[in-house]
């Protein structure tokens, strides 16, 4: 886990530590390379003993037409069972990876190819013939080569992009809470309600980052259930407390104070957010946490409208995080990437896009078989997938 770079130990000690770390990293990489070399040699021997993978090229197709081999070096024997001279190619998209030309009818040729995991095509005689499929599966050895964590420097662009996003929403949060205090002062409840909704939506969008600040999260968005005297507790404030109050026709006595506190806390949050840079694993963990909350009873106590808006905004915020980290996840675990996309889609399509439960203060699980239950399952599934992103990025 990377810590924010605010607190640095004394420079000389750090330099020595860095040098040792460098040396250790270099030695480890060298050992990994050596280990991989020996492992791949072993794999090479094993395949040779088993013989080559045979592919028959017939008049209109290959036999087999779909092949699967492990990553690394594979020897193919191409047997031309057609009546014309053929060439055989392994294609990655439009790029020819390997080929054997001019295999005479009735004859065979061997081709030895060193393939990385992925999906390839193979030609089967005439160019007009449909292509065969060649799947190269990852092995422990090929995984080992890929699993080294990407350099932090590669993340800078994505982290900067997220920071811009946080900055925009934090700015909007601050200005909306300012509008709220002004509306309350002018006793304009309709405007107050609008400002409240807008502010809460911006907060929810940046919850993956904001929720990490425990104290501010409690002040801005703490649930009544976690206070000793629940709704009556003097420390219960923020968006949850204001939800009911801004729906009233007339401002209540403590509305002005609560609105001022909210605006102050919003400014403090913005300052906190801009003062530090969230590393990629914290971003991923934050997105997972945001979604996980919504699978439970996190929105209990809020009005239906507010809960719905809050859930959608939080989902969008989590989706933003994932979209920025996706290129890195794709490289390491494309299947996870795809399943996360699917999970997002399923949650978006859940009826009214609402979170699991908007009722109940005791956190009782929703009845199975109900709409609520399937919503909960969809949110939880998404949370579980997002939980895996940290590891997929190479963090413990």
């Amino acid at each position: 886990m990377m810590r924010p770079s605010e607190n640095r130990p004394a420079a000389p000690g750090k330099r020595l530590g860095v040098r040792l770390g460098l040396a250790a990293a270099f030695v480890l990489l060298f050992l990994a390379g050596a280990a991989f070399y020996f492992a791949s040699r072993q794999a090479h021997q094993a395949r040779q003993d088993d013989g080559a993978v045979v592919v028959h090229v017939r008049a209109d197709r290959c036999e087999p037409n779909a092949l699967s081999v492990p990553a690394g070096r594979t020897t193919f024997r191409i047997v031309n069972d057609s009546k014309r001279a053929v060439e055989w190619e392994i294609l990655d998209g439009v790029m020819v990876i390997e080929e054997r030309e001019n295999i005479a009818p009735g004859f065979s040729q061997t081709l030895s190819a060193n393939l990385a995991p992925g999906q390839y095509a193979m030609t089967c005689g005439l160019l007009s013939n449909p292509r065969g499929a060649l799947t190269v599966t990852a092995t422990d050895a090929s995984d080992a080569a890929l699993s080294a964590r990407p350099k932090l420097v590669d993340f800078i662009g994505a982290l900067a992009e997220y920071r811009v996003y946080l900055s925009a929403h934090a700015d909007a949060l601050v200005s909306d809470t300012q509008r709220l205090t002004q509306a309350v002062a002018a006793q304009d409840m309709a405007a107050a309600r609008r400002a409240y909704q807008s502010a809460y939506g911006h907060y929810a969008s940046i919850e993956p980052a904001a929720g990490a600040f425990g104290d501010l999260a409690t002040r801005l968005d703490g649930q009544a259930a976690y206070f000793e005297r629940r709704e009556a507790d003097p420390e219960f404030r923020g968006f949850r407390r204001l939800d009911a109050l801004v729906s009233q026709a007339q401002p209540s006595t403590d509305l002005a104070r609560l609105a001022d506190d909210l605006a102050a806390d919003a400014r403090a949050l913005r300052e906190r957010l801009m003062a530090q840079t969230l590393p990629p694993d914290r971003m991923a963990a934050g997105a997972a946490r945001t979604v996980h909350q919504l699978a439970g009873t996190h929105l209990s106590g809020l009005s239906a409208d507010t809960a719905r808006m809050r859930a959608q905004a939080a989902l969008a915020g989590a989706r933003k995080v994932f979209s920025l980290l996706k290129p890195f996840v794709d490289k390491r675990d494309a299947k996870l990437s795809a399943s996360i996309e699917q999970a997002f889609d399923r949650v978006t399509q859940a009826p009214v896009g609402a979170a699991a439960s908007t009722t109940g203060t005791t956190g009782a699980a929703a009845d199975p078989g109900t709409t609520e239950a399937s919503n909960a399952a969809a949110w939880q599934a998404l949370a579980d997938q997002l939980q895996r992103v940290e590891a997929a990025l190479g963090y413990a």
Partner: protein
Amino acid sequence: MHKSFPESASSRDAVSTERRRMLRGLGAAGGVLVGASAARAMALEAHPAPVDRVAQAAQPTPGAHAKHTQVTDAPSGNRSQDEWHACFGAHQAGVLTPRPASGMVASFDVLAQDAQGLAELFRTLTARIAFLTRGGPTPELAPGFPPPDSGILGPVVRPDALTMTVSVGASLFDERFGLQDQRPKHLIRMVRFKNDALDASLCHGDLLLQFCANTPDTNIHALRDVLKNMPGLLALRWKQEGSVPVTPAQPGEPVANARNFLGFRDGSANPDAADDSLMDRVVWVGSEHQEPGWAAGGSYQAVRVIRNFVERWDRTPLGEQEAIFGRRKASGAPFDGQQESDVPDYAADPAGKVTPLDAHIRLANPRTHGSERSLMLRRPFNYSNGVTRSGQLDMGLLFIAYQANLQEAFIAVQKRLDGEPLEEYIKPVGGGYFFVLPGVPAPQDGGPHHDYFGRSLLLAAHPLLEKS
């Protein structure tokens, strides 16, 4: 002897008979002079070699088509001024000929009015080329006349490895000379690519001459000779001179390609000029290229004047320079190789982790199935002109490439290069597309020489041209 030094039409009448006898006598008598000035006598005695060489016309000399030398190898600096390359043969010289240290392209507007005029232009040009590339004493006139030769190489012209290559532009095939039906299939007026900032005054031309020699003065002398001899037939449009660094060969090391002004070896991965069948396929137009019959033995020539922003390049990190090209700067080796001649293995690097997908060499030649159709022979020079208004250096690459199919080679490759990172540092400002005329066989010993560069083209369009 006078057959080997055809005199131009303008000088023939003016030369006094006494001078001419003297010149003729030189060859036979081996150096006896009648009435010559002392200086001239010293000059002739100091340079007996060209006179001897004329007699030994059949002997090859060092440097003449040394097949083991590649076109873009760095010149080694031990060249003799007497080195010469035959201008006659199945193909013109200056294409496969190993590139010497100095080059120049000069583009001309043809001023001839009709096919007869064009024929005279080509005949005269051929005669001048034959003299200049072989060398010999220059004709003299009485002092009351302007001298027929500029004299910058002295009274006896040394060949100095000069080659002069004649090529023609698409504009020659307009209605002026009736050549419309004979235009080579792919010969068009050069069209701008996305990064080009073409200066009209540096582009195109009816006819182009490529001069190459060991020293720049030989090229300049030859250009001035051409202009002097054909004032009514040719007008100079634009020219660009260039050079390549002379690098003496080190014992035990392979001869390396010369470097361009970005500091990188230029010409790595050029097809092997010693491989005749490869050259027949890649460079020379043959029957399989389906061009007009007269064009067999010629070649398409792409000329590009490409300015390099050298100050900006010199401020770019080395790693980035190498990533832009796709080669190590010092050795010229590809990233997955050890030396310049190693061939990069892109199939093993489909994601471009070793050699970036937008590296110059990878875009130019992705080495996929079919990209061998885009092979061309590059024979460039570096140029250094002056200073821009911003006080920056105006220098760059005089790019010259030869291929049998312009569309599939240069144009296809340049389209692949559109948008490459190198574009930040280069700006094509001039050049054009031309067609190198087929070679002309050497005159038979003792017989008159009827053939000339461009004859096959003119006769293809005007079969009755010589019947009158």
